[in-house]
């Protein structure tokens, strides 16, 4: 399946180059949840406690099951307004 992954703000700084990338994930990799996806993308970097996750622009938690063509975003607490 193809998952589009985005990182914003300090989360992008943390990930370096991988700020916005489409991953072709082979089914046998056993990536089911957002948490699995982080581990797959983050090359050993721990997921910060306060990271927020959106799938297709809606907030979800790390146990959310991803599916083909999902857009998954990781970002720090929002600071608008």
């Amino acid at each position, binding site marked *: 399946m193809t998952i589009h992954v*985005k990182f*914003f*703000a*300090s989360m992008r*700084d943390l990930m370096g180059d991988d700020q916005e990338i489409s991953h072709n994930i082979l089914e046998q990799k056993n990536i089911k949840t957002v948490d699995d996806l982080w581990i797959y993308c983050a090359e050993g970097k721990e997921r910060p406690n306060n990271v927020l996750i*959106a799938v297709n*622009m809606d*907030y979800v938690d790390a146990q959310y099951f991803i599916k083909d063509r999902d857009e998954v*975003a990781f*970002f*720090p*607490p*929002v*600071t*608008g*307004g």
Partner: protein
Amino acid sequence: MKVIINSDCFDPWQRLNQFQSEMPDTMQGSYGATAVFVGTMRDFNEGDDVSDMFLEHYPGMTERYLENICLQATKKYDLLESLIVHRVGHIKPNDSIVLVAVWTEHRKQAFIACRDIMENLKSKAPFWKKEQLNKGQIRWVEKNTQG
């Protein structure tokens, strides 16, 4: 109901003037209360002088959340109209960052709705502030002040 993401400097009072003057005739005489909040960039934050700011957002999700917030408030507080303008990109001290305005029949709903929208925006809408300090350092703002 209108949500605008703005990368240019905007004058909140001019926006309000324009928005109100473009309201349909049916709005005339129907609202008794307008509550407005304007957030402005300060030149000082968390003990440091700030010279510049960059406001990042998540295009698409930001608009979606602001529209949702407005829609929810419209139902909950019987808003007759609402307007959100939010700045993104490079910002200087004294620039307006956010404008929230609501129009209702009575004042109580207006006050509560305007504050509620701002708190929801602050906690949900995907924006991130990066500050440039006078002493050169650049830092992400880690969290908003308590509402």
